[in-house]
């Protein structure tokens, strides 16, 4: 059964119960009011009967007509009230009958006394008659009082019983509703809580990586529908996750290949340096010893050998530098980029002076990084800006800003150099890729590749904005808390 249906039924039953309860309360309230009326009546009769006892004494002694009228008025009132009293038991009926009988006898005695008084005006001198008449009237009036008191007591007891019943009914209704609500809450909540507990297991399982978990679905309520939808979702998620896993595996393979390649480059450059140094040394020695002693072709060839050996040595040095640029100190330390900047300027002071370069900078922050690598990266960027200058003297500006959104520092090196053609941008950071003739711009094409590798090893990015003929701005970022690819090579 659906939860909503269950709530509707509960509400309906609850409403019916409330109607029944209100009916019961109204019924018992009516009973209580009826009994209150009866109590009022019996109180009046009791009071009138007491007054009759007093008035009968007075009449017997003084025989005033007004006393007789009052007596008759009171007995009439008693008759009226007695006829209004409703007996609820044979006991009460018996008391009412007795009271009526007492009253009739009282009136009979009174009539008898009236006759006697009429025939014997000096009745006040007949003490025996007065005493006997008084006791007879007292007998009836007091008996009536006693009967009415008992009737009043009986009604009062009934009133107490009704009050008690009222209290019990209220208590019973309270308990009944309490139990009903508890049972209702118990069964509905149990179902809901169980369903929620079942549903909760799904996200927990998926969260811990178990995409094979299926929420058990039985029944036809909203929770079952939710469970079924969740199962569909995990099924879809599973297929997406499989693709992600494959991608992750491919990335890992790629990283492994990159690491292997770096290791190979490191080993190769290191191992090649020594024989190459020998080749270079001996070819220089050959040039020195035989230059001008052989023919022109021999000099040309020796010169080529020396030149290429030197170039190859530069290539190997740079390759070694590149392969080592991924290794940084662990953990990172606090590095003042101001200090780094000054050191770079010191190292490049000849080039700066020789080219008339003007370098300006904003305040540079202290960051967490490898100081040596940062110095090398900044040096490559400044060296690049000086090298690829235009006809104008180079103007370079270094600045840094906080990127609060990405929680990183963004450094920039802006120059007024020759700029870069857009089509060449994708090849800019590729190792050994030289975009311009080597004769005009000597080098091995490793500088920007090394910068890229250093920055990425800090978990940052490097990119460029450039306009040919107007200059370039190189940006690199360093996270506030760099994680980097630790010693990825």
């Amino acid at each position, binding site marked *: 059964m659906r939860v909503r249906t269950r709530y509707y039924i509960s509400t309906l039953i609850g409403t019916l119960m409330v109607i029944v309860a209100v009916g019961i309360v109204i019924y018992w309230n009516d009973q209580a009011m009826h009994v209150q009326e009866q109590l009022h009546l019996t109180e009046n009769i009791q009071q009138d009967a007491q007054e009759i006892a007093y008035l009968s004494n007075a009449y017997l002694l003084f025989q005033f007509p007004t006393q007789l009228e009052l007596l008759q008025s009171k007995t009439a009132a008693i008759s009226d009230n007695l006829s209004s009293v409703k007996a609820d*038991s*044979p*006991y009460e009926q*018996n*008391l009412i009958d*007795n009271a009526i*009988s007492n009253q009739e*006898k*009282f009136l*009979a*005695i009174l009539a*008898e006394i009236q006759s006697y008084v009429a025939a014997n005006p000096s009745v006040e001198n007949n003490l*025996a*008659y007065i*005493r*006997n008449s*008084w*006791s*007879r009237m*007292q*007998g*009836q*009036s*007091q*008996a009536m*009082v*006693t*009967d009415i*008191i*008992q009737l*009043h*007591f*009986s009604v009062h007891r009934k009133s107490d019983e009704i009050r008690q019943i009222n209290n019990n009914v209220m208590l019973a209704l309270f308990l009944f509703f309490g139990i009903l609500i*508890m049972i209702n809450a*118990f069964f509905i*909540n*149990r179902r809901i*809580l169980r369903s929620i507990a079942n549903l909760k297991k799904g996200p927990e399982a998926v969260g811990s990586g178990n995409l094979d978990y299926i929420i058990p679905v039985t029944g036809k309520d909203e929770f079952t529908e939710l469970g079924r939808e969740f199962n569909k979702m995990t099924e879809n998620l599973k297929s997406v996750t499989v693709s992600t896993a494959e991608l992750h595996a491919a990335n890992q393979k790629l990283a492994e290949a990159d690491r292997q390649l770096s290791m190979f480059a490191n080993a190769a450059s290191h191992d090649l340096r020594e024989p190459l140094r020998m080749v270079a040394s001996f070819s220089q020695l050959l040039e020195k010893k035989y230059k001008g002693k052989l023919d022109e072709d021999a000099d040309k060839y020796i010169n080529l050998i020396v030149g290429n050996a030197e170039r190859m040595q530069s290539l190997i040095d740079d390759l070694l530098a590149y392969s080592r640029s991924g290794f940084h100190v662990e953990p990172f330390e606090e590095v003042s980029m101001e200090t780094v900047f000054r050191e770079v300027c010191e190292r490049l002071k000849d080039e700066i002076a020789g080219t008339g370069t003007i370098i300006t900078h904003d305040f540079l922050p202290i960051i967490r990084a490898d100081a040596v690598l940062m110095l090398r990266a900044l040096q490559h960027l400044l060296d690049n800006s000086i090298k690829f200058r235009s006809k104008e003297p180079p103007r370079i500006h270094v600045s840094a800003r906080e990127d609060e959104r990405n929680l990183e520092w963004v450094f920039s090196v802006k120059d007024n150099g020759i700029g870069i053609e857009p089509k060449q941008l994708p090849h800019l950071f590729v190792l050994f890729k030289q975009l311009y003739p080597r004769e005009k711009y000597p080098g091995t094409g490793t500088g920007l590749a090394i910068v890229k590798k250093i920055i990425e090893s800090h978990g940052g990015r490097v990119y460029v904005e450039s306009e040919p003929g107007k200059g370039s701005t190189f940006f690199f970022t360093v996270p506030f808390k760099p994680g980097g690819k630790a010693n990825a090579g």
Partner: protein
Amino acid sequence: MALHFDAIIRIFSAAALLAVLGACNGACSQNNSKAVSIRVGILKDITAGPELIAAAQGYFTAAGLNVTFEHYETGSQASEALIAGKVDIAGMAEFIMVRNALRNEPVSIIASDSKYEGVLLAARKSSGIDNVTRLKGQRVGVNMATENYFYLSRLLERNNLSLEDITTVNGTHSQLIELYNRGEINAVVFTRLYVDQLMPQSDILTWAAHGNQSGYRLVAVRSDRIAANQELIKRYLGAIYAAENYIFNRQADAKLLIAKEHGFDPGYIESEWPLTRFGLSLDMALIAIMNDQAHWMNEKSMEAAPIPDFAMFFYVDGLRAVKPEAVTIIR
């Protein structure tokens, strides 16, 4: 959650068990005490109805009382038996109790359990007594030790006669019946039970002697035994109260039961029933009537003692414990 539900059921069960044990304890405790044997003197008339029903319905037994009845023809005899210690409780009319009080007998009233207006003047029609005034000069039989004598006196007074206008013949009920049937008296005063034994029935006229004045049928005990038996009195009156409720709620059964227990003709019960009002009470009118009767006794020189405060002859605590609303005596 299931644990909580079990706990709730256990609490309800324990409460129900306690309630049952409590109820059993309350219901059973009444019979725990050992039954006490008491002797009760009753009159062989309808006014003994509550006692007969209490015995027949087991109300006495339920109250832990083993009741033995002693039957008497008059309340005067029952009173004498009480004073002599032959019975523990006795039924009698207020007239007898007035005499006891004037004689300072150690008797106290613990309740009135009925009111009765069944005293009749019966006269032989053929003797010319066709109304009360015709009693003048007649021999009228009456048991002078009973309230019948008082009612005869009042009847005569209401008809402008007095006891001096007639010749009263004193005797027991049996003696008076015999005298009447022998023709030695033409009028006699007593209840329907004895009137029915007069012969011939076709020649009898009767008049109610009470004149709308009810006689009280009292339950009396020895004064000196009250203090030690207060609990017993409450139990006794409680049983009578139960019988009273039986009479009110099952009137037809009550009539049959009284007739059966006394060996009465149901017709007799039917004729006496309207003249009898059952119900435990102790009301102020009783003292007024007793005062009137005491003065009457002094006037007739039956008793010479000064009239006492009759309230001193009532023990009200027993009835007040059983039926408080029925006690209206001012003490």
